[in-house]
């Protein structure tokens, strides 16, 4: 089996998406030449000749729809789309944010229309989703029947490397976040958490992300209105982040795979997640999970963590890291990929 990954994520300054992409390359043992963008239309014929399967990972921020449509339609190999987020859901949340909170009430969402996505997805032979919730939402949203699919989350690395770093569990008043400061990641809601519990420091790391204008306004809203909160830009020293922060902020309204939440957990930063989210699916019965979209519940979990002895936190986290190590390691994920892709021929 020879896999080619076609994506429009290359050379974009995103944080989490690029990390997941790089991890996928490692998991599937893809070389740099196995990962191509859409810049050369002729490349499609080399792919048809040199590979057996194509994975397509699309950023919904598409600027050349017709071109990409043409490119993908010329691929003669089995085409599997990796759905890392559902544009319609992102757009709905964007509208929600604009309607409820944005002073300017402008609306611009950087993606193509649903009909165009539908046309693009019709070219797929199969789909990979990061979680069940997305799969159900996807089939509700698009007019696609009886699609061939598999749920395959990203890997978190080699099994032997997914080991709990208990030394970083040090109680302090620091909450950390890595990614883009978007509404869907729940960053805007940090303001409400801060109102209830202003004693914490909040450090956001990452970049503007896919919706730069909105995310910029959200990040600036938080840093202006919440004392002790700051946006620190790209994360240069991950270890320093894990060491400095006690709690990881995952109040995601929509996040198909909170990659840095898992990474933080492994490295001793205690995440607070929400029930009814993909994060909760992969961390079943996790004790520090708030009710979905309930910031008071989130704050309660913050207090719960604060009141739990470090030794107990280490015990709980070790158990979950072991669970992740057994379920989301490179070998397991690679095998699921290979088995599924073989079935698409």
């Amino acid at each position, binding site marked *: 089996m020879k896999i080619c990954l076609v994506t429009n994520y290359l050379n974009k*300054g995103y944080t989490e998406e690029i990390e997941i992409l790089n991890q996928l390359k490692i998991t599937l043992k893809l070389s740099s030449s196995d990962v191509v963008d859409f810049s050369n239309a*002729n490349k499609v014929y080399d792919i048809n000749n040199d590979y057996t399967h194509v994975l397509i990972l699309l950023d919904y921020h598409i600027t*050349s729809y017709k*071109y990409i449509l043409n490119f993908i339609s010329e691929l003669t190999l089995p085409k599997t789309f990796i759905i890392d987020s559902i544009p319609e859901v992102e757009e709905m949340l964007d509208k929600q944010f604009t309607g409820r909170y944005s002073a300017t009430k402008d609306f611009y969402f950087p993606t193509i229309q649903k009909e165009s996505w539908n046309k693009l997805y019709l070219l797929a032979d199969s789909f990979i989703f990061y979680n069940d919730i997305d799969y159900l939402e996807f089939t509700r949203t698009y007019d696609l029947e009886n699609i061939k699919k598999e749920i395959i989350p990203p890997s978190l690395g080699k099994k032997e490397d997914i080991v709990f770093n208990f030394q970083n569990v040090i109680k302090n008043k620091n909450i950390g976040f890595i990614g883009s400061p978007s509404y869907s990641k729940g960053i805007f809601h940090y303001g409400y958490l801060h109102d209830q519990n202003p004693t914490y420091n909040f450090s956001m790391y990452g970049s503007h992300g896919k919706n730069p204008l909105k*995310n910029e306004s959200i990040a600036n809203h938080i840093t202006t209105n919440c004392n002790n909160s700051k*946006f620190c830009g790209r994360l240069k020293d991950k270890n320093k982040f894990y060491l400095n922060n006690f709690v990881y902020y995952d109040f995601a309204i929509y996040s198909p795979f909170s990659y840095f939440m898992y990474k933080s957990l492994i490295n001793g930063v205690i995440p607070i997640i929400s029930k009814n989210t993909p994060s909760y699916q992969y961390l079943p019965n996790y004790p520090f999970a708030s009710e979905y979209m309930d910031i008071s519940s989130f704050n309660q979990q913050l207090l719960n963590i604060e009141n739990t002895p470090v030794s107990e936190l280490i015990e709980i986290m070790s158990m979950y890291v072991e669970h992740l190590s057994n379920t989301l390691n490179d070998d397991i994920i690679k095998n699921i990929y290979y088995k599924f892709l073989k079935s698409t021929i």
Partner: protein
Amino acid sequence: MDLKQSTLGFDKIYVINLKRRMDRRMDIVKAFPHLDFTFIEAIDGQNLDFKDLINTNKLNSYFLDPHGMISMGVFACALSHKKAWDQAISDGVENALFFEDDVFSPFLLQEDNGNFTPQYKDILDDINNLEWDIIHLGKKRLNTVGISASKHFTFPRFNHSYEGAHAYAVKKDMLKTISNNYLPVKFAADVYLEQYINTHQVLVLKESLIQQVNDLVESEHADSDTYFNEYREGDGDVGLSFDEEGKVFNRDIVYYIKHPKDFLDLYVKIVFNEPKFGVQKFNPHPDKLEFNKQFFGINELLLFLSKNLKEGEIHSMLEMYPHSGESTFFFGCSNIFSYIYYLNKTVGEDSFNQKLNLDWKDIKIAFNNNTYFFKDKLKKYEQQPLSFLYYNLRNNDLEEFEKDLTKHNNVKFIGGSNYDIGKNIIKKIYNTKPLKTFTDNSWVIEL
């Protein structure tokens, strides 16, 4: 960083200055009397040879620019910045501040005794407390938007602050990164530094502290060694921009151009080498001709040829004076020809897409998928029969057109655009009218 008052808190200040611009050197010293500058003799665009730059791999075979502007000054400026970075690396500094020689500050940075003003000290405190790789102390725009990083600095939005590389500081490790990756040059210095927003810690002052003298005047009066002097007089070796109608100036060196809306990176792509699009590989589209007919009259000519050239045989064509537009696109998509050659470099985009509301992305596909070969392979057509010889006729090609027409043998059909322009010559050479003329003024003769 200690106070280092003579270098604004950085290890060194490098100033890029042309040898022939002593006036500027004197001005900057006068403007900042307490500062200690290390002058870097800038590379002069007047002394650069375009072909030499390409051959020595200093200049990329294409250039990307948000505005589609190039000049020898731009290349020289880029190389001068690299020269300054290399000097800083060789000096072993931990960080360095880089100025172009026409900078000034509307704010007071130092007191009369050389001490920093409270305002500058406040900025310096910010710098010392932030993690950064590149810091801009000024951009063309007075204010830069982004995610606030501190009281004075912001993380800029990508592609919103690319203008201006006249006052920036770089840390040691980053100096190596930017220097090692700059050749062959494919961005102007400021646009190049902008690219690092996607991968590194690039911070910009919310309000520009250092500006350029040229920012105070209208651009046509600007004293700029990079863009305006030779470019405006039209006698620079390389100079390119779009006029108000989107037409391109100076095509002596540029082979073709992709507009921003045609290009995924949202910059104009200016290509300096001949197209090498490779063999056309797009799969047959049975309805392609009908589809194309909606857009452009050349399809009538192509339909005629498809009916009159034997199916199943290999057909070659040669395009003379090719444009980077309609014929290129439709010849390729017609699927009639197995080999498409061209002679002469492309003469550039024309306005057919605008008139016919054809998407530029469609043309991009044509650029990338049509069948072209290099000059050395063109001999092939001389030895083999040619099914079709096509001329993009323009008034200024007529003399050459007449000479060409007498050369070609072994051609089944000869045709072209703009019959009205070429009809006298066609009649003179062939002593006949075309076999057919089409609604778009294309014509064809069977030989």
